C-alpha cells in the first residue's frame, strides 16, 4: 500500500508540472515597458550661494513629457528656498545654431508641503550630435534675481506609451500631443492621460536672448480629443475595443480619457482634436470595417503605442 501511495504521489508530481508553462502575466505586461514612479535627481548645478537640483522620473530627461521637480538650496544656510518666483525655459540648439523651444511650464508652481517647485517640459527630440538642450532658469531670493543655465541630456524614450506627436492644426497653429500615462498599460481599461499644447507665435521683436516671449507655449484649454484605438497588425483586421472614452481636460490641465486594450501588442491611437466650439483642429475618422489581412486604419492624427 505504501509503495502504491508513493507511486501515485510521484505521478501527481510529474503531472503537476505542465508540459507548457503558464504565462507569467505580470512579466508579460512588462516586456516592452517599464513603469517609473520615483523621482530622482536628473541634474544639479551651483550658482553662487545656491544649489539647484531638478528631479525627474528615473532621474532622466526623456524625449516627450517630463514632470520636473526643482529644489533650490542656499548652500550657506542649507535651507530650501521658499516662495521664490522661478521661470523655466528649455532651449534647443540645432546644428546651424538655430534656437527653439518646446512645450513647457514657464512659471513653476511652488509646492509648500514638499518644498519643491513643479512644472513640466515636453522635449520634442533627444540630444544628439546635432541637437543640444539647455535649461534657462531664473529665480528670485528676496528682491534679487538670479539666472542659471545648464546643458542637459535628453534621452531617447523607448517606451512607446509616452510617445508624442507635433502637427499644424487647421487653424494654422502648431500643436503638440504628448502621452503621459499609462506608462505600462494593462489589458483592459486604462486611464489615458495626455498633454495638449500650442505654440504661441511671438507678436513682438525678439529681445535679449533668452527672451521668453519668443518661446511661449500654452496648455490648450477645453478642447476634446476623440479616441479610436486600432491594432495595426494586418491579421488583426483593424481590430478595435469597446467602451473607450474621449479625452477631456482635467483640473490639472492634462487631458484624460479611457482606452481599452484587448490584448498586448501594437496599437494605434487615432485621434481627432476638436476645439471648444467643436470644430476639428486635426484628425480624420477612420474606417471601422473589419478587414482581415489589411493593416489597421490610421487617421490623419495618431500616436502608435506598444505594450
Amino acid at each position, binding site marked *: *500500500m505504501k509503495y502504491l501511495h508513493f507511486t501515485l504521489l510521484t505521478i501527481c508530481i510529474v503531472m503537476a508540472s505542465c508540459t507548457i508553462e*503558464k*504565462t507569467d502575466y505580470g512579466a508579460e505586461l512588462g516586456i516592452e515597458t517599464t513603469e517609473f514612479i520615483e523621482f530622482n535627481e536628473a541634474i544639479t548645478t551651483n550658482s553662487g550661494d545656491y544649489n539647484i537640483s531638478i528631479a525627474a522620473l528615473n532621474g532622466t530627461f526623456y524625449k516627450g513629457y517630463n514632470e520636473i521637480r526643482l529644489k533650490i538650496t542656499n548652500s550657506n544656510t542649507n535651507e530650501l528656498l521658499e516662495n521664490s518666483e522661478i521661470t523655466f525655459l528649455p532651449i534647443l540648439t540645432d546644428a546651424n545654431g538655430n534656437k527653439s523651444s518646446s512645450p513647457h511650464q514657464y512659471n513653476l508652481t511652488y509646492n509648500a508641503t514638499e518644498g519643491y517647485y513643479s512644472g513640466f517640459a515636453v522635449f520634442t527630440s533627444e540630444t544628439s550630435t546635432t541637437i543640444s538642450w539647455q535649461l534657462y532658469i531664473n529665480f528670485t531670493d528676496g528682491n534679487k534675481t538670479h539666472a542659471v543655465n545648464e546643458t542637459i541630456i535628453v534621452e531617447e524614450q523607448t517606451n512607446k506609451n509616452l510617445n508624442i506627436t507635433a502637427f499644424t492644426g487647421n487653424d494654422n497653429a502648431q500643436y503638440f500631443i504628448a502621452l503621459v500615462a499609462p506608462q505600462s498599460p494593462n489589458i483592459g*481599461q486604462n486611464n489615458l492621460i495626455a498633454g495638449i499644447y500650442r505654440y504661441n507665435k511671438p507678436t513682438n521683436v525678439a529681445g535679449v536672448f533668452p527672451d521668453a516671449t519668443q518661446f511661449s507655449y500654452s496648455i490648450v484649454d477645453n478642447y476634446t480629443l476623440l479616441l479610436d484605438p486600432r491594432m495595426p*497588425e494586418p491579421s*488583426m483586421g483593424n481590430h478595435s475595443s469597446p467602451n473607450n472614452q474621449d479625452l477631456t481636460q482635467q483640473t490639472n490641465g492634462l487631458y484624460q480619457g479611457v482606452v481599452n486594450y*484587448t490584448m498586448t501588442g501594437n496599437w494605434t491611437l487615432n485621434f481627432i482634436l476638436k476645439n471648444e466650439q467643436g470644430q476639428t483642429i486635426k484628425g480624420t475618422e477612420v474606417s471601422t470595417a473589419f478587414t482581415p489581412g489589411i493593416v489597421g486604419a490610421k487617421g490623419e492624427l495618431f500616436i502608435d503605442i506598444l505594450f
Partner: protein
Amino acid sequence: MLFLSTFVNAQVVEKKKDSLGGVLDEVVIITKKNKIKTDLKMAVSVDEFLASSANISFIKRGAYAWEPLLNNMSTERSMITIDGMHVFGACTDKMDPITSYVDSNNLSDIEIKSGQEGGLHGATVAGSIDLKRKSTPFDFAKKWSGGYQTGFELNNNQFFNLANASFSDDKLVVDASISNRKASNYFDGNNEEVKNSQFEKLNASLGVAYKTTDLSSVRVDAIFDRAKDVGFPALPMDLSLSRALITSIAYKQFFEKGIVKVWDTKLYFNAIEHYMDDTNRPENLVHMDMPGWSTTYGLLSKINLQKGNLSSEVQLNAYNNLSIAEMRMYPQDRSERTMFAFSWPWVTTTYAGLSINNLWDISDTSQLNFGGSLGVNYNFSKYVEFNRIFHPNASQEKIRFLPSVHAGYNFDVYNFNFSFGSGYGHRAPSVSEGYGYYIYNSFDRFDYIGNPDLKNEISYEVNASAGYKTKKGSIHAKVNYFYIDNYIIGRILSLGSPMNYQSVGVKGYTSLDYATLFNFSINAKYTLLQKLHWQGTLTYARGLDDTKMNLPFIRPLSYQSSLHFSHKKFGFLTSLNGDFEHINYSPLYGEDETPSFKNFNVSADYTFYIKDYKTVFQVGAENLLNEFYSTYADWGNIPRMGRNIFTSLKINF
C-alpha cells in the same frame, strides 16, 4: 461472511434505487451493466456508446471527443461526472468533454438522469451523466479476471487495443486497464478524405481497494489520459496534446444496524492540460498558441439511509476548480511583439452543495421519488480587467445560490407503467458563459464574450412516461418539457470588433427571458421469433426562444430500428437509423437546413473458445451504402464518415 452479505445488500439497494429512481433511459443502461457496448458493435468508444441512448445527441467537430447533448442541451446545462467527481475540460472550444477522458474499458456503466433528478452531484438543468468506473467487489477466493479487445476500422485505419485486468481477494482488489486508439483521417460518403480528422488516444487506469475492517474499505483510483495529434476538421485548430490525471481516494464504511447503511467519502484531484495547434492549417492567417489548464480539488461524501420502505441518499459535494486559457497570436512579422490575452482569465469556481434523493416504495406497484439540493456557487476572476472591457461594472466575485427540487411518481397498472414528474432548479453560468473572452465559435463565426453578472438559469420541468409490456414485447413513450428562465445564449453585440480573423462579429452571452424545450421519444421492442428481436426508437424535439424562434442544436425527428438474430454461436444485427430533414433550424445561431439522411448498418459476430476463454469475433459495416451526409449538429456541416467496415476480437479471461 457478514461483511459480504452487507456489501451485496447495499449494492442491491443502490441498484434498485437507481433503476426505479430514473424515469428515463438509465433503466436500459442498467441492464447493460459492465458491458459498455451497443447492439451493433461490441467494441465501442464512450461516444458511440452514449449515442445509443435516446436522449443523447452529439455535436461533432471531428472523429474524436464528441460533445454530448442531453435532452438537446449542451454541456453547460448538464452535469458530467466520473464516479460523482467533477472534472472540467480545459478547452475553450469544447474539444474535451469529460467523456473524452475515459475509455470504454475502464467503465462499468454510464448513468444518465434526466432533468433535476440528476441534481445529486451538483446543479443542472438538462440532467446528469455519471461515468461509473469499474470497481470489482472483494471476493473470498483469490480471483483474477481480465479482458482484451483489439480491432480495426477500415475507413480511417483505426487500430485499437484495450486491455483490462482485475484481481480480488478478501482484503485487496486491483483494477487496471490500458487502452490505445490510433486513427488516420476518415473518408466521407463521396470517398473524399476529411483532412485533419486523425486522432491518437492513450488511456490507463488503476484502482486499488483495501479492506481496512470487515465493514470498511479504502480505495485509491487514478486515470491517466493522453490524446495527441487529434484533428478537428470542423475547427480552425487541432489538438497537439491533451493530458488528464484524475485521482481520488475514498473511504467506505458499512453499518450493520441502524438506518445508515453506507457512508462513502471521497477526496479527489484532477488536472488537465490542453494544447491546441494550428500548424497543420496553412490557410490560417495568424499563428496562435492556445493552451488551457483546468485543475479541480473536490470532496464527495454520501450516506445511504434506509428505514422501512423509504431509502435515501444524502450527498455533500464540494469542489474548487481553476480554469485558465491563454491565447497568443503571432504577428506576420515574427520579430514583432506577440499579442497576448487570456480567454479564461484565471477563473475560480468553488461549489458546495447538499443534496438528498429519496425513494419511497408506497406499494409493490408504486413508488415516489423526491429530493432536492441547495448549492452555493462562488466565482472569482483573477484578471477581471478582461471581463470589464465589455462589462465595465463586472464584479470580480460572484456568489450564487442554486436550489433545486424534484419529485416523480411511478406506478404500474396491469401491464402498463406510468410515471409523472416535475422539477425546479437553478444553474450558474459556465466559465465561458461568465468569463469567456473572445472565444471563437467557428459554427456561427462569432467571437464570444462572457458576462460575469448573468442571472442564474432557472428551469421548470415536467415529464411523463407511459409503457406497456407483454411477454413478447414492450412499448415505452417518454416526454419532457422544460421552461427555462434566463436562458443563456450568445447574442450579437453592437460593441467591439472581432479578434479572430475568421470571425464576423462579437457575440455576448446574454439571458433570454425564457426558452422552452420539448423532448419526446418512443421505444418499442418485439420478439418476432425466439431468436429474432426487433427494436425501434423514434425521437422528436423542439426548442424555442422567447420570440418563438428556433433554438440551435435541436435534433429533428429521428429514428432507429434494428433487427437482431442469433443462432448458436452466431449473432447478426442490421440496423437503420437516420434523421428527417432539419426544418426547425436556427439561422440566427448559424444553422442552415440539413437534409435528411439514413444509415444502414450490419454486423455479425461469432463466439468461440480459445482454451477456456470466451472469445468473440465481430465484423460489420456502418453506413453500408456509403451515404454522404452530415447531421444537424455537425459543426460547420463537416461530412460524416462514409462506409466503415469494422472488425474486432474480444477475449475474456
